[in-house]
Each structure stands twice: as C-alpha cells, then as structure tokens.
C-alpha cells in the first residue's frame, strides 16, 4: 500500500491505470512501451526513487530545473521561510520580493534593464516575443529548425511542427525557421527588414545540444543588429551556470536584446521564469505596464526562491564545483568513448551541458533505457534521438560523478544488445 496521507494506491500498477484513466494515456503508455516504468516517488539531492524503491541518479534534471538537486535543503528552507510571511502576492502591485529579485537578476546581466516575470519558460518566451513586436512594430519571428521554446501560443509557433500542427498553431507566414549554424539562411530571412525577433537557444537543448559553430551566434547577433531585428537568447536550459558562466550568452561574448530564463530559476520547488530586457526593448513597461498580465507570474514566493537561487550560483564554491564536474565528465566520457567507439561516437559539451552521440538513429533511446536499467536516468533528445541529453547538476560531488561513470560503463553491453535486437530500443 502506498499511503500518501491525502491519497493512496494499492500498487504501482493501480497508479498507472489511474494515470491512463484520468490523466494522460498517451504519455503514460509511451514510457511503458519504452521500457521505462518510472514513477518518481521520493526524491533527494541528485537521486530519484521509483515507487518500487529503486534509486536512480538524475541526469535529466528536467532541463536544469533540478540544477541544485531535488529539494535542495537551503532552497526548501528558503521557501518555507517565505511561506511564513508571503503568499503568491498580488501581481497588480509593486512588491518587495519582486523588486529585490528583479534587481538581483538584472545585475547578473550587464546591459539589461528590466526583469519581466512569468511562471514558466513558455510564458517568458511569450513575453519576449510580444516585447519584440512592440519594440519593432514588426510581426515576423525567426527561429531555428528544431529549436524549442515552449508550448504556448507564440512560443509553440516558433518550434517543431510536431507540436504546433496538431493544435493548428503553426503560422508559417509569421514564423519562419532557418537551419541551425547556417548564417546565410538567417541573412536571407532577415534581409526583408520585417522580422521583429530572432529567437535561439544558446545551445539547442531538445535538438540534442549541437554546438554553435565558432562565431555563429555572434554573426547572428550582428545580422540582427544590421536588419533591425531583436536578438532573443533562450537561456531556459543554458542559463544559471550550466555553461560554466551565469548565462550561456556571456560565455559566447554576446549582448542579446533580451534573454529568457526559467526551469532552475525556481530551484525545482516553485515555478518562476523571467524575460530580461534592455532599456530599448522595455518601452511597453512605460506605456502600459499592465499590457502583459499573469496572476501567477512573478509570484512572491517564487521571487524569494529565485533570489536565493542566484545568490547560491554566485558563490565561488559553486562556480568552482561546476568546473570540476565539467572537467570530470570531459575526461571520463572521452575515455569511455574511446573504449566504445563502435556505438558511442561523439560528445558535445559546454560546462555541464552535454549531448552524447550514438551511432544509430534511435541510439539514445536505447542508451536511455540501458542506463535506466543501471540506475541512471538521462533522457534522449526528442528532436534528435541519436543524442542523449546528459545534464549533471552543478552541485554534484565526486562520489556521485564516479558512480555515474561506473554505471554507464556497466550499461554499455546492454546498449549494444538493444541496438542489435530487431525490435530496436523502443
């Protein structure tokens, strides 16, 4: 019996049936078919526990949401403390938590002026795109093919067909896509001087973290400047020290007009996101500050947590730890690749953002499954299933990192077996 006080289940099987019946049959069945029967129960640090009690090391982190691990004690204490005094707050009014957090956030980003809050990444992207349209009085938005910016109205239209067409939300006349790392294609798209914004993940996550070519992002930014288009950096997965610096764009020497952050900003315990903009872009905040409204956007509880998240990330110990973790995986994964070069064929890395390439169209699906069977949870890239997203947290310690590598090594024979089997991985 799984008694959670508020509700209870006889077994994991009963839970799965209920999830299919009342929640989401498609998602529930997808994972069952993929051989990943995970129902996350208890969680602590970088460990997840399935309802069966089995422990998994979390290398998915929901795209950096659990950058600090699950239920980081300092963040949990922060939220509890905030709950003794605040609630979500009233979005109509200025508030101490919002002002303090906005200041803290803006000060991490030279050149930026205002932080506009939302509750999720897509909402922050939405704010960025609306802001661009306001500032340029242009309508068109350019993004990259296989970019990913969320699933709300404007944001989903920037992304892959798979997610927009199904809801008739694709709008090809306003939303143009160009191939990643193709600077000429971008120039062709911007040349008409009718594009409000170019939005790009600093390293495209859902695409499997392909690395931008040398100078590519800078060239994109220059093209934007030349054609009066605003450059929006989507930092939902690349921000918050994951590249080794606070913001991924800083590590590429960029000066975006706006950037978007979410996921880990709320420490995995309270949803909050932000679109951070320059003075030039922030005009609508003067003209009609209530032009974008969100009851739960910039919740004061989230602001207190976010404030502490930034505070933690600025500590020298954390910065140093990120470098150690990045360096550890750089070395050990290269060694591992050398030993398994028949299947493991490439490593994309910047800081603790890694994409591991496997020599099979669905290679990462098999690896994800084999790792799961060996106690590690890492997800394949939805938009390039050759690539495993490998996302270690910024606070990982030596012992856990070593264990990850050992478990990965142990999973390799299983990877080969899955790739050889006629049924493939999933």
């Amino acid at each position: 019996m799984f008694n959670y006080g508020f509700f209870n289940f006889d077994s994991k099987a009963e839970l799965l049936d209920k999830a299919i019946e009342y929640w989401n049959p498609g998602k529930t069945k997808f994972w069952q078919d993929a051989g990943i029967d995970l129902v996350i129960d208890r969680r602590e640090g970088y460990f997840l526990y399935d309802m069966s009690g089995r422990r998994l090391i979390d290398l998915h982190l929901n795209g950096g949401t659990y950058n600090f691990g699950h239920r980081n004690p300092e963040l949990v204490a922060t939220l509890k403390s905030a709950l003794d005094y605040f609630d979500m707050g009233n979005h109509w009014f200025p508030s101490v938590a919002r002002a303090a957090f906005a200041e803290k956030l803006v000060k991490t980003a030279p050149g930026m002026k205002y932080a506009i809050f939302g509750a999720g990444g897509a909402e922050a992207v939405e704010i960025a795109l609306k802001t661009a349209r306001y500032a340029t009085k242009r309508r068109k938005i350019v993004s990259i093919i296989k970019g990913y910016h969320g699933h709300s109205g404007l944001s989903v239209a920037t992304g892959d067909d798979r997610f927009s067409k199904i809801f008739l939300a694709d709008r090809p006349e306003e939303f143009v896509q160009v191939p990643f790392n193709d600077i000429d294609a971008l120039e062709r798209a911007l040349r008409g001087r009718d594009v409000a914004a170019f939005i790009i993940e600093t390293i495209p996550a859902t695409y499997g973290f392909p690395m931008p070519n040398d100078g590519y992002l800078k060239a994109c930014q220059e093209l934007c400047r030349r054609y009066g288009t605003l450059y929006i950096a989507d930092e939902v997965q690349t921000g918050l020290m994951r590249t080794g610096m606070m913001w991924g764009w800083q590590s590429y020497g960029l000066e975006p007009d706006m950037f978007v952050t979410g996921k880990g900003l709320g420490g995995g315990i309270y949803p909050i996101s932000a679109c951070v903009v320059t003075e030039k872009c922030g005009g609508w905040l003067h003209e009609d500050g209530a032009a974008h409204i969100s009851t739960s956007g910039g919740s004061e509880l989230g602001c207190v947590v976010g404030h502490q998240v930034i505070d933690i990330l600025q500590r020298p110990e954390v910065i140093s730890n990120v470098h150690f973790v990045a360096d550890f995986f750089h070395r050990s994964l290269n060694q591992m690749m050398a030993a398994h070069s028949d299947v493991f064929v490439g490593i994309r890395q910047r800081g603790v953002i890694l994409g591991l390439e496997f020599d099979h169209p669905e290679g990462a699906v098999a690896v994800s499954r084999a790792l799961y069977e060996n106690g590690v949870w890492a997800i394949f890239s939805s938009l390039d299933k050759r690539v495993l997203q490998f996302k270690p947290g910024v606070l990982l310690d030596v012992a856990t990192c070593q264990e990850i590598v050992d478990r990965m090594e142990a999973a390799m024979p299983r990877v080969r077996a899955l790739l050889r089997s006629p049924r493939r991985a999933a």
Partner: protein
Amino acid sequence: MQMQLHEDAPRLVVPDRAEATARMKIDRAGWAVRSYARFDRAAVMRVTRAVAEAAHKAAQEYAEWAVRETGMGVVEHKRLKNELSAHPLVDFYENTDLVNPRVDAGRKMVEIPKPAGVVLALTPATNPVSTLYYKAILALLSRNAVIFSPHPLARACCAHAAARLEAAAVAAGAPAGLIQCIEEPSVPLVQALMASPKVQVILATGGGPMVRAAYSSGNPAIGVGPGNAPVYVDPTADQTLAAQRIVDSKAFDNSVLCTNESVLISLAENANRLERGLRAAGAHILSEPEVGKLRAWLFPHGHLNTAAVGKSAVWIAQQAGLRVVPSTRVLIAPVAQVGLDEPLTREKLCPVLAWATAETFERATGMAQMILRMTGAGHSAAIHCEDPQKAMDFAAALSVYRVVVNAPCSQGAAGFATHLAPSFMIGTGYFGRSSVGENIGPQHLVHWTRLAWNSDASVQMGDFGAVRAPFEGQAPAPRPAPAPAAAPLAEAGGMDRDMLRQLILQELRELTRGQS
C-alpha cells in the same frame, strides 16, 4: 532604541548560509583531492615548497595580524612560530615519502599510501596562523585537502592566510580547493561539519569540549587534550641554565603554546640556587600576599580568567594589582600544595608559573603526577637534570607521552628545541583521551593498502622494478570556464578549442565511415 532594533530584525528567516557554503567547500575539497591524490612525489613536494615559501614570506604579517586580532601573544615569537611551520617543517619530512609505494621483497609485501581525503582542521585562537600553516603543510605532504575552521577570535587572519596558501598551491600547479577556510565559524557550524560523512578526518586543536565534540562526531578524529606541563629541576642540573630555559619558555609568545611549563617543582635543597637563576632571567617571585592577589584575579570563583591568556607578565601583574618592574618576563607564584586545591597549578596559558618544593625526588615525581591527574594527562612534562636514571624514573612514572630534558618545554615538546617532530598538535594519546600519542605529522593522514603475498616459499612475488606507480603526476588544472566577452583570447584557449577538436574528430569519423 529597543523598538528600533526590533523593527530592523529580519522579517524572514534566512537559512544558514554559512553552513550551506561550508558544505559546498567540502564537496569542492573532494574534487580537489581527487586530482591531488594522483600527484607524484616531485609534484607534491613542489606544491608543498611553494606553499611553505608563501607562508614564510607572510610570517611577519600574520604574526602582527594574529596579535592584533586576538590580543594574545608576542609578535616576534609568533613570527618565529610561523617561520618554523613553513620550511623547517617541510625539511623535517623531506625524507618521509608518503607518495610512492613501498616494496618489501623480503616480506613479500607492497604498501600503497592512500591519503585520507578531506581533512577538517580546527585552529585555536592562541596559535592561529602557525597552526594553520602547520596543518596545511601536513595535508599537502600527505596529498590531502584541508578545510580550516578557525577559532572565531582569529577568523580574519586565518581566512586571509588560507587564501594566500591556496593561491600559492594553485600557482604551483595544485587543483583549486585544496586549502579552504570557513569564513564565519561558529560552534554549531563546526559541529555540523564534523559530522559530515564527506569529511574523512578531523584535526581538532582547541578547547576540551571541542576536542570531545570531534571525537563524538562519528568521524575519525585526531584530537589533542589540554596541557599542564610540570617541570622538575633536579639539584644535579645547572640551576642557572635551567632557570634561563624555563623563563625563556614561559615568556615565549606569553605561554600560549600548550606545551609551556605550568608548575615548577624543585627540591628544598636547590630552591635558593634556582631562585637566584630565575630572578636573573627576568622572573618576579611573588610574596605570599601577592600570590593571594594573583590567584584571586587569575582564578575568580576557581575558573581561569581567559582575559589573561597570552598576555604579558607586566600586564597581568597590573591587572592583579601587583607592582613589578617593567622588565619582568614571568610571574612565579610559590605554592604550598599542588592539584585540585591549588588553582594556580592548573593550565594557565600565560606567563604565570606555580612553584612547589618537595623534600625528595620521589615526592617531586608524585607531585608532578598529581598535577597531571587534574589536567594535562598525555601531554608534556620537562625535567632538568644530569642523572639519566632520574630522567628515566620521572618519565616512567608520569602519564605523559613526552618529557623534555634540559630544554625549554614550550618549544621542546613542540619539536623546536628537541628532535621531536615539529608540531602544533601534541598527541595526548590514551592518557589524554586521544587516538595518537606522538606529535602529529603527515603520516597520520595516510593509511596504507598492503598487498601481501602468500608466505609459502613456493609462491613468487614477481618483479616490481618495472611496475607503474599509481599516479599520474601533476594533472592539468581543470579547464577554465569560458571567459567572458572581454577576454576573447582566453576563450580560444578554453572550451572552444576542445569543441573544435571534437568537430574535427567527428568529421574524421564520418570520413572513415564513408569509406567503409
């Protein structure tokens, strides 16, 4: 005013940042030591020497700072202690190899040194920077990482000194994070850290309760108990020399070393000769009423007045209402009894020496043991005599693990005027509720993995001459973070070059795939 204070108090409770950050330091140390533990001996000695040099150069600066910050001790003596804890300490262990495996073909055994890992080191207010230097060098010699938790009274000089040593280590090729210091030490914080499963060993120097807490933490600990050294001057000794050494020792850094003489014992027959020597060396011998005044000031309600710790004899005399000449170096208080009934025979950590006289050598030895029974067991004692039998009998009878002979005890027991290991951790062993009874050295921070062959003569061990040692030498430092926009050159040397290499590799692989 009261109201104002209340209104300014934080409305939200901020979680303990000091503890969260300290835990991150422990993880960081774990990373640093992972790499440092693979250094070969040459690299270890290079790092250690570089740190010793940085320590030596800053010896005066931190001597002044420590005295300023704590109000204890004497600058020139602190400088000397700092200097001794730099190069001479490394010299002492120059030939103690804690890095290379030992091969013993005769016993068919190979021993591989394994560093402890993360060392949590407490440093006292009395010898803050010298202890920090000493523990840092011990950690480096044994390929460990160290995190300091300084006594709050000396936290600024310690934090600064630790940062300086760390910088020197990094400049010499060590990984960052090998030498760290907690900025905001407090008792609850230290207790929390001592219990961390990621700390491999605690080096506890400090008050008794802190040492006991270290042993209660659940982690391996090396803690040393308090001292209270009795010193016996035998009639066979050169009384003038003995007196000079004792006064020098007591005046050294105003007696803050736990090895300093606490109670002088002589026989009635040499009392006069000794007294002349003591006076000549700069001691003020107190009259009976003066002893009363001093006792009242130094031990109000029977407890040591901590304001006296590390202060000069003249200052203490003034506070106690005694008149002494300005050149007075030590106050000597003749006492009729020793042990529990005479507080002046307890540990004082200031230039006050109790003086008891006995009729016989045996009685003197008994007195010394009585003093140690009260406090100071396992620590140090001293004897001045020319009779080896008496030295032997004295040492055999006492519950201490070192007896300094014909030398100042402050320096002698700490290895600076004897051939004992130079140390700011005087192991007080089982007598003093400690795990180690000798002066602590780097060898205590290493355990050995022993490969032991079948002892049967028919089983051969094989030739270890050509076997690779289990280290990589100095590992390259972790790659720097991608540099900010302002420094494009550094960026080219950072991640991007690796990325480029990856791309080339990838291209190569694709090329070869095409051919097959």
